């Protein structure tokens, strides 16, 4: 083995060790969805709660209750600004939780909604947020049935934070999860990536950039998942590509299943306006959040019908096959660049876009 290979082996061993939380204080990186978030969750929360359902680290827990299988999830929203092209924190808070249920194969049923509101916040804005939540839940056939409200002093919050929890029913006999992914599977995305993250960044207005055609992609993915599972029983794993983007999801899958994921850069659908903003800002679109797009890993034999099912649906317009799962290199995601070279796509360390959801 060459000296370089020995070093790489040593690093791979070091990375397999359980992460240790070294920081004495929380930094913004702990909320970014990358390595620091993963370390925080594994070294602090998993350690404290010690539950096998939680340890799966899926977007939802699937619970057996009598003959029923119930999916259960929760999500908090701190997006800034609260209103942006294509939606508001209310749409995100409902769709985000519905999607965490949907990617577990669950038909969304009921939601809770909790609000932390800052003293002085405009009631008209709160009304707009609530109306958006009602509309989003309605469109998905889900009901908001319980909630809570807290008000904090001026300066102790940033307008309004929303937390939702949701339950749904897994009606089909499917078990989806990153650990079930295996060599030979195909990797699809359900549409162009990065719209939401770049929309938010531009909406903040501190970059003097504008893209007229760009809207957040926030949407409930259940109708798309429902169609997909109907025609493609070989679906192994679904994830909505929120914070950390497609790259983070693929890394979680590669680690959980100890497989190598190879992505073709040229096949990844990205709108020109998103790509342009990313080029200017030095951001890789693979890490930019979406709020209505998912990564689908499906048995290679089912890749064609799965892609066809996605493409037929309005929510899956622009869906594409972007990569393949193999045995090498275990636990890593590789990108074949458009230029024809190969490189790693790792978890992000820092956070290029804080508070996008």
């Amino acid at each position, binding site marked *: 083995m060459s*000296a*370089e*290979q020995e*070093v*790489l082996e*040593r*690093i791979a061993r*070091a990375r397999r060790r359980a992460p240790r939380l*070294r*920081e004495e*204080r*929380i*930094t*913004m*990186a702990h909320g970014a969805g990358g*390595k*620091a978030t993963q*370390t925080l969750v594994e070294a602090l929360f998993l350690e404290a709660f010690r539950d096998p359902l939680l340890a799966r680290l899926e977007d939802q827990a699937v619970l057996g209750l009598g003959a029923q299988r119930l999916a259960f999830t929760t999500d908090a929203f701190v997006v800034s600004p609260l209103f942006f092209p294509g939606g508001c924190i209310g749409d995100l808070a409902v769709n985000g939780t519905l999607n965490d249920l949907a990617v577990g194969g669950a038909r969304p049923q009921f939601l809770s909604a909790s609000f932390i509101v800052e003293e002085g916040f405009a009631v008209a804005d709160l009304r707009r947020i609530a109306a958006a939540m009602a509309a989003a839940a309605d469109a998905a056939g889900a009901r908001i049935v319980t909630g809570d409200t807290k008000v904090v002093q001026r300066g102790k919050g940033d307008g309004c934070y929303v937390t939702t929890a949701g339950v749904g029913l897994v009606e089909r006999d499917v078990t989806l999860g990153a650990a079930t992914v295996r060599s030979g599977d195909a990797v699809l995305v359900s549409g162009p990536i990065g719209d939401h993250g770049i929309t938010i960044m531009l909406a903040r207005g*501190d*970059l003097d950039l504008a893209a007229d055609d760009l809207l957040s992609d926030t949407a409930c993915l259940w109708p798309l998942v429902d169609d997909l599972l109907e025609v493609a029983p070989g679906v192994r794993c679904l994830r909505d590509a929120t914070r950390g983007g497609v790259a983070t999801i693929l890394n979680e899958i590669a680690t959980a299943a100890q497989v*190598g994921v*190879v992505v073709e850069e040229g096949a990844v659908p990205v709108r*020109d306006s998103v*790509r*342009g903003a990313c*080029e200017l*800002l*030095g951001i890789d679109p693979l890490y930019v959040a979406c709020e209505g797009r998912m990564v689908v890993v499906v048995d290679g034999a089912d890749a064609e019908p799965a892609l066809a099912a996605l493409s037929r649906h309005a929510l899956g317009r622009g869906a594409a096959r972007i990569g393949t799962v*193999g*045995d*090498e*290199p275990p636990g*890593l995601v*590789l990108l*074949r*660049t*458009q*230029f*024809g*070279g*190969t*490189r*790693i796509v*790792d978890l992000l*360390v*820092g956070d*290029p876009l804080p508070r996008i959801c």
Partner: protein
Amino acid sequence: MRFVDEFRDPAMARALAREIAARVVPGRRYAFMEVCGGHTHTIYKHGIEDYLPPAITLVHGPGCPVCVIPMGRVDDAMHIAAQPGVILTCFGDMLRVPGGHGSFLDAKAQGADIRMVYSPLDALKLARGHPDRRVVFMAIGFETTAPSTALTLLHARAEGVTNFSVFCNHVTILPAIKAILDSPDLRLDGFLGPGHVSTVIGCEPYRFITQRFGKPLVVAGFEPLDILHAVALLLRQLGEGRCEVENQYGRAVTWSGNGRAVEAITRVMELRPHFEWRGLGFIAHSALRLREEFAAFDAERLFEIPGVRVADPKACQCGEVLKGVLRPWECKVFGTACTPETPIGTCMVSSEGACAAYYNYGRFQRQRVMAAHSA
């Protein structure tokens, strides 16, 4: 996308790769240093090494602005940030650079008001918007970024802004290249010249490299085809027995540079007698400070900074990596004790740092992967 895809065309890359392979003299090995961290980033991000024959090694140079900032200057900046009413602004890359007492991110978590900006003008805008605060911009970078700092200061003075200052850490590239050429432990066959710096200083100043040190230099752009093209041009020079300064990046760089940008720098800044570079030590006339005339905008004069030299951690071999003597993975702590999450050295922090670029993009067993996926 126009103006990007043209410079990433795989068919042209294959043509250049064929030319490069044909120009390599059998049995000879070549080491070319890309001076600029932007090049290092491009090389790894696009997987350019896949196109180069094994006889060619690209050696990563010192041109990474964040990498060369010594720990003492990070501590000085944190000291400024801790003063009452101060908002310290910096480029995003600086946030994770470790000083003697943690990084800006740590200081921020402990209550310091440190903000990321994309340009010094944004920092000035912040100062206008917060007349009750003292806004300090931590200026870093080579001749590429120095003009924007200088112009911002000229603006600030013209507008009479009184709550804005600059903590100047600008460095100049030529003394660093000279230090590398003087170093006995490195054998190089040529240089990929720094494209962005050259948009300002032009090509003429590199003549000493060809004349005194006998090494060819090709100023190169930052798209992957630029790098391959520049390598081909270096091989062409060596093959034809020429040793010249050549400009591959003609779409942005002129022979004489940007006179107005240089003038802005010289109006506002002057050379320091010496400056410490991380890992490289003190280099004479290698950095810029504000002229006396701009004392009212000089954070080094407005705040009493400790100015203490902090020795690099013993295990850190950033200096060797910056000089191109060690490849990133040859450093003792690479990838185990020193990672992008918990960097010991600066080269592991910036996206332009050789260690970070290799760790983030190149840390895989290339041959094994190629074999598995072509089977």
